[in-house]
């Protein structure tokens, strides 16, 4: 019942917000809904419900392992959003707020969906509802970004639909009734027709991989993250991608059950490593600190894929990494948004000396840099170390080598850019160099909160979460060697 509430509540809030007259007060819907949503999610985390056999959606172990993170992410972002929208009061925020609320509702639906078709519906809807968020700034660049997002993302999502149908047909042809419910598909197991199964996996991985941002389907990411407001970037990088990842995990569960585990492993590993390499190469010479975050996100999606490919311990580490990465990225995106406002530009050609211009945000950004490049005691360090550990446990030295090499190059590129914009002579595009930016607590505390969460996850991830991850990882057992 509560799992339905998780979906319905934001949607109702969205409707209310849409109807709400007050421009100034409307943003408060965000933290309100976010707070309740988070409370519910964590309550469910603490005492998970029993799942109905043929439920359309439900708070199953996978949802339990990630959904609380998404709503936590949304909560902190929404706190940020209140101050942000006040700063941007020249824009009407009706659509923005509504879309945000719809988005979290649909995310909760997608993460809980127990039926491939329903999952696809939610995923596609999330794609569509993101569009107005992307061109909130109404600049030409924003329109271009949303156009590309829509076309590339739409194509990808269309492919995943085709894949879903193929899976259904695999079941149908294999003697099943073609139902897309996961439990049914898993139960059908090896009797799924192999060729259709493989086709389905290929299309679904490509489709949801596009949504997740695995190279070479990542091309929409830099544009979207570069042009969207910081908090939208955070939600995309932490929420939407997580949804896509969970979708892939669910499909993997089916395909593994059908006995094609080695194929899923092979393909996921290849795409994960490829994404890491591509991201590292792009990061090496990037000059735009918001697009940089996009490529970093591509890298971390690759890490997730690698983790998922390793199975067992790898999946556990990947779920752990979903949390750490999303929350750390949150800090980066929000502080990057502050810096963007402070500097009026986002490339190191135009900007430098932000440590003087916006001291707190700049410091948070640097801390976030270290956090996201696996520097202890932040969470990412622990999750990535666990994944590396898993690669070594699988004796996959090639993967480990590529992985570590990419970590270095990514750090090198990001570090060089970050210190280039943070240090040096104050130089910005929009303001006289002598001027400091007032940094309201409303836009400073949320990223700090994210950093704190990242630290907390790293040093003392509670047993409850670990248990949740273990339960989720147990659903994707190690493929038989």
């Amino acid at each position, binding site marked *: 019942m509560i799992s339905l509430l998780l979906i319905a509540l934001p949607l109702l809030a969205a409707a209310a917000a849409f109807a709400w007259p007050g421009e100034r007060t409307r943003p408060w819907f965000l933290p309100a809904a976010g707070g309740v949503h988070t409370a519910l999610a964590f309550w469910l985390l603490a005492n998970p419900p029993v799942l109905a056999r043929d439920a359309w959606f439900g708070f199953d172990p996978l949802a339990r392992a990630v959904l609380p993170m998404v709503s936590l992410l949304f909560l902190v972002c929404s706190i940020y959003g209140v101050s942000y929208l006040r700063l941007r009061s020249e824009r009407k925020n009706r659509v923005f707020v509504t879309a945000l609320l719809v988005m979290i509702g649909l995310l909760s639906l997608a993460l809980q969906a127990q039926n491939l078709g329903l999952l696809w519906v939610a995923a596609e809807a999330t794609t569509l509802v993101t569009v107005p968020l992307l061109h909130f700034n109404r600049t030409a660049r924003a329109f271009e970004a949303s156009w590309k997002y829509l076309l590339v993302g739409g194509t990808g999502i269309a492919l995943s639909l085709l894949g879903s149908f193929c899976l259904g047909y695999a079941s149908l042809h294999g003697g099943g009734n073609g139902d897309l419910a996961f439990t049914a598909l898993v139960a059908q197991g090896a009797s799924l027709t192999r060729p259709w199964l493989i086709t389905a996996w290929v299309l679904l991985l490509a489709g949801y991989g596009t949504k997740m941002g695995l190279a070479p389907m990542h091309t929409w990411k830099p544009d979207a993250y570069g042009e969207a407001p910081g908090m939208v970037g955070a939600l995309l990088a932490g929420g939407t991608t997580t949804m896509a990842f969970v979708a892939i995990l669910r499909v993997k569960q089916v395909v593994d059950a059908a006995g094609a585990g080695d*194929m899923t492993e092979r393909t996921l590993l290849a795409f994960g490593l490829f994404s890491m390499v591509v991201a590292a190469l792009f990061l*090496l010479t990037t000059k735009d600190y918001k697009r940089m975050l996009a490529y970093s996100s591509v890298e971390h999606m690759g890490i997730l894929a690698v983790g998922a490919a390793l199975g067992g311990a790898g999946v556990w580490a990947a779920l752990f990494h979903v949390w750490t990465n999303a929350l750390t990225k949150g800090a980066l995106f929000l502080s990057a948004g502050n810096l963007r406002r402070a500097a009026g530009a986002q490339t190191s050609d135009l900007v430098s000396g932000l440590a003087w211009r916006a001291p707190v945000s700049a410091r948070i950004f640097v801390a976030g840099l*270290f956090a996201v490049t696996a*520097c202890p005691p932040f969470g990412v360090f622990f999750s990535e170390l666990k994944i590396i550990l898993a690669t070594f446990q699988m004796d996959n030295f090639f993967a480990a080598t590529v992985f570590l090499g990419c970590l270095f190059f990514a750090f*090198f590129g990001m570090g060089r850019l970050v210190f280039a914009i943070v240090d040096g002579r104050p130089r910005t595009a929009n303001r006289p160099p002598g001027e400091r930016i007032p940094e309201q607590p409303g836009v400073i505390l949320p990223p700090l909160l994210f950093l704190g969460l990242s630290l907390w996850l*790293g040093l003392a991830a509670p047993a409850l979460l*670990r248990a949740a991850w273990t339960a989720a990882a147990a659903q994707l057992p190690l493929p038989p060697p």
Partner: protein
Amino acid sequence: MTPGGLLGIAGIGLTAGILGAFKAPRLWLAATLTGAAAAFAAAVWALATGPVWDWQPGFVIGGEALHLRLDGLSAFFLLLLSVLGGAGTLYAAEYWADRDHPVSAPSARAWWNGLLLSMGGVLLCANGLHFLIGWEIFTVCAYFLITTERQRPAARAAGWLYLAASHVAMVCLFAFFALLAARTGGWELGPMGDRPGLAPLFWLALVGFGLKAGLFPLHIWLPSAHANAPSHVSAILSGMAIKLGIYGLVRFTGWLPVPDSAGWVVALLGVVSAVLGVAFALGQHDLKRLLAYHSVENIGIILIGLGFAMIAAAQGQAAWGRLALAGALLHIWNHGLFKALLFLGAGSVVHATGTREMSRLGGLWRALPWTASLFALAATAIAGLPPLNGFVSEWLVYLGLFDAVSAHGTAAYAAIPAAVALGLTGALALACFVKVCGVVFLGLPRTPISRHVHECGWRMRLPMLGLGAACVAIGLAPVLFWPALVSAADAWQPGWVDDASSTPLATLGSFHLALAGLVILAAVLLWRRVKQNGIRRAGTWDCGYAAPAPRMQYTAGSFAGIITGWFDWILRPVRHAHLPKDNFPARADFAEHTPETVLERVIEPAGSLVQRLSLAVRRLQDGRVQAYILYLLLGLAALAILAVMGGPR
């Protein structure tokens, strides 16, 4: 008072120091010094009374139960850390005071305590995960200390180079510890010599720790970092931070099995680092850069000792292995002491004159008598001359090498060239420090800047005096410090180093004592004699040249010219010369600069190659959505091939 309590006090003191760093400098000073003193006491306790202090309070950090262990080896390094930390703290209180650096001083204090804490953590952690955490935090703290003067681009560049290099080391250590954990099934560290499968991990450790230690081909980050950091930071960096690399090597060569070739490789690296390090040092004209290169040299000497100890361990030759080991360990202390003293001295020179450029200094002994004499003392020590500590440790290493030679084993083939190289290194270091002392402190001021300067205050002088006293003490009474060596060596190779009987340290010490006494006596006598005979003052004779000017003094470059000439093949100095022409030359000038060859001739070209690759790849993201969809299709195709390839099981 158990070491647990003392270490607790130390931790609390340092943490309190971090809190006090911003608002209450005095509190910071007191707390940090207390912490250092407590750590010192704990280390002494552990070294004096044998038992290993082992502490496992059930609480969990990052999924692993905290486990601290203070054995002989940790205590050995902890002692050095506490000494240098205390000295640097007191020094910084004046050298980097809020008065002169209102912006950077508070944060520098905080990072300083963070550095000390994390280094102590690295020494104490008996759990791989926590070791790694401490290691990385210490790396980052060091980065922010190196870039204390962020406004200077040179400092930022140096810091960035350091950080990037350290990240390579970090990646290697990731792999090292992860593999260790994957193989042993847990993060707990400890002796595991019974698992021969772990031997290959040594190479990862060698790169990871060697990069921090700054052994020769991996030293690229070291000179600029140590030169651009504030001097108390340089002191702890080259006195302690690079020793942590050595600690890692010693620690894990002691605990883990190593490949057969390990000892030989380490010894070879040691020889290369020693000779080339001092060669590069001779080429430098920047006081602190020069000192930094001497760190490479001394790391080389340490590694020679360690390498031969490893060879001996592999061959079961305790007789000479223990000498090499003891020499290496003692040299770790010694280098920490005199190199810190040298950097603090250089710091007080920079503090007074505001330049590190040796060719602009000169005759500073008048203005800075304390600094000058202590610097000269440290120079004598680092040149490995009796009766100071540098000689004692080098002498132990020599003994090991000579015994290895007279043992006529296979090790002799390596020991002979190593011994010769050690001799060369000593002579080169002597030349180098004659140059430094002569050019910086003796003669006449070359430029006005070094004329009107002042000696540093007591808070900068006291640490230097302390370090100097330590150098003298180890030199004159080495036998007193033997128990410490024994307990450290026992942690490495149990039951190897029994007592001082194997080395006549006592005799050497007494000889040093007598020598020191006689030296002072003779100096005094000669001085009194000179007084009796009467003194006339006159200008330097200079072979009757009428108008000698300070600028006519021999410069550092010309001094080292002969030797750097021999090493041109690796130093590749860049010279700009306008030589005087015809009878009445209008103007002539000569400038020489020795680049960091490995960095500029090897690393940077390789880096630019990767850069070009990256730039080429970026063109794929050309902004055309059609292309993006094409990539999507290609990805799909690749995926299909990948899925079908291999086929169903």
